[in-house]
């Protein structure tokens, strides 16, 4: 077994703060939107918690942004510029998840600190980090002070549009969470990736045995 230092401390801290915030935001978000179905806390408490962790997520986003800008490792999120190799890489990865993994083929992608994500991950996380989370934060902020940001809400097309975008992203994140957690169990052991996210080191079999 060889150990690769895949997740530096700032990334791990950011990830788990993010994870915790996401869970609370999803739960309180459900409570805010579906009070007729779920009654865990009062609406007011749900809104207060949602606001607090919204800001936690907001500031946490900057931990991530500053770390990657300062460390110069931002390119791990950037897919290859060659469309051909991007498509080939994606098909190879999709083929693995859709076929190879079932017949015991080896994962075509090997994570290294400089090449952490496979092409599909790169596209997904670039969208999430550069587009979806900023949009979720922005729409959340607009709804946090509707009156104060009324000009911006007007530009966005009204409060219903802003809320719909926020809800659609929330639904996306919720459904993505299931996939994300499941994929995290596809390391060489079920907890390999998850453990790595705590200790920073990913353990990998010497000769790349697959299970």
């Amino acid at each position, binding site marked *: 077994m060889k150990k690769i230092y895949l997740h530096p401390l700032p990334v791990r801290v950011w990830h788990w703060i993010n994870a915790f915030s996401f869970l609370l935001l999803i739960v309180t978000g459900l409570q*805010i*939107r*579906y*009070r*007729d179905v779920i009654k865990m806390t*009062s*609406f*007011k408490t749900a*809104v*207060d918690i949602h*606001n607090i962790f919204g800001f936690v997520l907001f500031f946490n986003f900057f931990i991530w942004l500053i770390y990657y800008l300062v460390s110069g490792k931002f390119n791990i999120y950037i897919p290859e510029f060659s469309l051909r190799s991007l498509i080939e890489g994606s098909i190879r990865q999709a083929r693995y*998840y859709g076929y190879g*993994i*079932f*017949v*015991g083929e080896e994962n075509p992608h090997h994570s290294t600190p400089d090449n952490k994500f496979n092409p599909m991950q790169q596209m997904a996380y670039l969208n999430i980090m550069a587009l979806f989370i900023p949009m979720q934060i922005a729409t959340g902020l607009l*709804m*946090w*002070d*509707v*009156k*104060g940001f*009324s000009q911006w809400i007007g530009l966005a*097309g*009204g*409060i*219903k*549009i802003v*809320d*719909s975008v926020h*809800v*659609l992203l929330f*639904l*996306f994140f*919720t*459904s*993505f*969470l*299931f*996939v994300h*957690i*499941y994929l995290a169990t596809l390391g060489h052991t079920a907890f390999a990736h998850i453990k790595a996210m705590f200790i920073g080191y990913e353990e990998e079999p010497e000769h790349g045995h697959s*299970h």
Partner: protein
Amino acid sequence: MFRFYGGQVVKKGTYWNLSSGESIELEREKILPGNRQVRYLKVPTTGIFILGPISGLLFICLLPLMSLLLGITLLTRIATASDALKSDEAAMCMGCHSAQGVVKTFKNKEKVSVYIEESHFKNTVHGFLTCTSCHSTVSMDNHPSAQYASKKEFAIQISKACKTCHSDEQVLAKPIHKQAITRANAPPCSDCHGSHSISKVSGGKAEASNSQYCLTCHKKDLNLSMKGETLSLTIDETILRKSVHGNHNCSDCHVSFSKKSHPVKTFGSKRELSISVAGVCKGCHPEKYKQYQGSIHSNMLMQGNLNAPVCTDCHGAHSVGPKALAETISGVPCRKCHEATFEAYKASVHGQAKINGKNGAPICSSCHSAHEMRPALASRSPRATCMGCHRNASELHKEWLPNSDIHLEAVACTACHVPDAERRVYLRVTDSASGENISKARVKQFLGANYESLTLAKANGIEDQQLWDMYRKLGDSGTKASLTGTLGLNDCNQSHSLAPKGKALKQCDRCHDADSKFFKAVSMAIITPDGHEERYNVNPAVLSSMFTILPLNQFYALGSTRIKILDIIGIMMVVGGMSVPIVHLTLRILTSPIREARRLNKLRKEGRR
């Protein structure tokens, strides 16, 4: 020098007694006989003989002249004799009627004093007449004890005497007489002109003030009949004097009437008269009148609603009270028409504060303003109305209410502060630039034929598709207009039942729950030309429809008006997300024999090597 009296000591000479014509020769100084009344003339006898013929000649010459003078004198004496006769009649009447305290009792037990102040009567226009000129049944020889039913009956009978001198033509020439006399139950002449103190009405009372002049008649029991209605023309002077206009002259308001002019005016009804007369108020109160003109009351009137209030309906006509009176529980005029609303107010926190004398407690005009009274003011502009007094309301709400500013804008104060009322969402077409609500005329203009289809609502009310069409049409017409929503009360009367602060709704869950009752009634409200709002029923489902994302882009309540289609998309996304691991894991379990077989195969190959 030549004249002497009886008893006087005189010198010698011849003295003629002027009374008897006798002459007395006195030889020496002596006393003239008789008393002082007896006059004597001292003329020498020779003088008599000289003056005698001269006087005779003069007498003959002056005789025609003297006879003429005598004739004149005699005629004068005859006239004087008639005067004396009249004077005798007056003296006879006044013998009794100058005594105060003598009263005549009518059949109905009414009493009237028969005392006459002769000097006053002599100064009236009828001063030259004698008593029997009018009281024709009475003479020096005959004083019948006439029996009249009442004082009024007596006045009517006696007033008939006026016609002896004043012909119908002369009387009817005056417009006011035409009005007063030609109808049934007309007042007798004496009602207006008096009896023994008659002076000319016009000009005769030049000294009297304008008001006193008018009140001569109008303090009496006068009525005007108009098409089945009776208008009292009687003015209670004490009420008039107590009013804020107590020092004004009648013609200050009744501008076409004066001491010299009393035009005949005809009105279809008492109401028409009130409306017409109220117009004079603007002469002195132009500002208030201008404010009134923009009000719902004025608009109702312009639309032909004669029951719409005019100045006098709230302020009274002759009893106009001070402004402060109109701001008291007992004196507020609004309650006359808005009784139910007023009762709700009285029971409210505001009404109770007012009743308990709390300084500055609001009454109707505090929120609705007095003259520029506008409808539904409170529900459309909560800031302007309630926060005019509750200036720190915004700060107080910020302490606990997230997004308090937007709440205070979209939720009428009453929606929370009248806790037991039914709520309704009002959608109004609003000019995006000014924030003002757009009137029916303009909405119609923008929507054209679409307006009719909008208002011809379906069974469930206006549907989302109709709002979407309307929104597009408004956009096409180049108008920056949108629908703004407000959560208010179903019945505006309930807005007045404001509860004490502690009882106001503070639980967010009452609103922010799809099960909330507050979003189950929706209306589109369009302002009509008279300032009212026409309400069209809207299907409450529009609040959570995808079609209203743009038309209703300013009205959204978290949870309760959530867009339903997003829920369906959400379920699909989450189920999709969850199914990825489930399906994949299942496939991995199912395919594990393949992997196991391939692993063994591989190991076998490695073993062979």
